[in-house]
């Protein structure tokens, strides 16, 4: 469904992605893990069109998307929940959701929009309670839920999630991973997930990539990754004692 081949990217003069290749098959959940600053978020930004591609190719369902702008990619079915809760802070929760469903509204009209918003409220009841509050005044976790809900509003086929569990309470994290699982089980959603909580991510993922300083260093099945000694030590936090000793 999605394929990156030898992709490079720069921030100014800094070379942040170096020949990154990865692919995500339809219906799969793939996770991307790696240390801070490895370039995971950049990879997602690049797929969703926020970051420009220098060299290499990016295809979505066989179509070259490396030159397509972010807003058009949404139309193709790619939704991106960026890190740090990019919501419209001075607008109300409901307005945020409406905007999330902008394309839906444009194609299917107001009714469908209302219906989908209700669906989201059913999924995230706390947002319903905060309906008319300014999004910027929500608690961190509430904002994260809103961000995810906004992305789901336009019924994407490929969902790019950047650290969705960041700052969320364990219960909610479980809930969010459940939701991802559910969406995936419904069969029509493909997920590319960037996570620090590698444990949880690998549990729901089919495959995983490990990234370090702008390069993909490992690609394996999720289960295999969980057993990989290197990965365990670096990202899973297992065997802490072992670490302490080191």
């Amino acid at each position, binding site marked *: 469904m999605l394929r990156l081949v030898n992709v490079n990217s720069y921030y100014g003069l800094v070379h942040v992605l170096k020949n990154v290749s990865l692919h995500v098959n339809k219906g799969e959940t793939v996770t991307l893990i790696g240390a*801070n600053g490895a370039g995971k978020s950049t990879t997602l930004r690049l797929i969703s069109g926020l970051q420009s591609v220098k060299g290499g190719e990016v295809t979505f369902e066989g179509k070259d998307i490396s030159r397509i702008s972010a807003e058009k990619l949404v139309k193709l079915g790619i939704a991106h929940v960026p890190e740090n809760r990019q919501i419209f802070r001075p607008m109300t929760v409901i307005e945020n959701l409406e905007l999330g469903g902008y394309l839906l509204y444009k194609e299917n009209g107001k009714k469908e929009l209302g219906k989908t918003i209700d669906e989201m409220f059913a999924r995230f009841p*706390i947002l319903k309670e905060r309906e008319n509050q300014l999004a910027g005044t929500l608690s961190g976790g509430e904002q994260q839920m809103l961000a995810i809900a906004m992305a789901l509003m336009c019924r994407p086929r490929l969902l790019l999630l950047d650290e969705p569990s960041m*700052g969320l309470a*364990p219960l909610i994290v479980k809930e969010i991973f459940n939701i991802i699982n559910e969406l995936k089980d419904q069969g029509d959603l493909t997920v590319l997930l960037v996570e*620090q909580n590698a444990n949880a991510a690998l549990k729901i993922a089919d495959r995983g990539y490990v990234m370090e300083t702008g390069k993909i260093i490992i690609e394996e099945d999720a289960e295999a990754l969980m057993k990989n000694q290197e990965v365990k030590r670096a990202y899973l936090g297992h065997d*802490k004692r072992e670490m302490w000793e080191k």
Partner: protein
Amino acid sequence: MVETILEYQELQKNFGGVVAVNKLNMTVDIGSITSIIGPNGAGKTTIFNLTTGFLSPTAGNIKFFGNSINQLKPHNIASLGIARTFQNVQVFDNMSVLENIMVGRHLRSKSGILSSTIIPPFLRKEEKHIKREAEKWLEFIGMADDSQISAGSLPLGKQRMLEIARALAMEPKLILFDEPASGLNARETLAIGELIGKIKESGVTVVLVEHDMELIMDISDIVAVINFGTRIAMGTPAEIQINEDVITAYLGD
């Protein structure tokens, strides 16, 4: 007997209709690591904002070493020796890493606008001292190599470390951490945990808000659980882990 460093009495904060903190009573022992956990929107950050003067309470009292600090401005509270970090990291991204920490020495240095104007930096003793101290703290968090990098281009984990070092440079008596490990991977979380341990050893009291249970259980002396702005439980990590209320409200099965 252990001394109390911080005390909340019937603390209350309303935002319009929303009661973010509701009749909270709680104490923090000097020299301890006290953790506050609770669901999203429970009011944890609000408690920090009240403690550091960014918000003022609707009702109730906050006492630091027995003195009420309700009405003080953030910078006054900082000068009493309370430092904090932010849930959304707030480093000064228009400055280098070293300068970020040098700013942290603000309260420990004196020169005012007039003397700063007249005396060039290389003739000023204080300036050298500030720089030395800042380098020391940079060493402490293990980021000495990054000193000249612009803080804005650091990866998140390092920004959090930097924020902590900046707070430490104040040499506070009490330090409040708002989710220091969020967005960090297990290895980095471990490093933060280690750092917090070191901070405690140096005699600074720590209050910690965090969602990473492993970290909480690892390093806390006391855990308080907040829901809907009130305390629903308080105890040692072991006690909390098996508390039914906490499990249903927060941890999940």
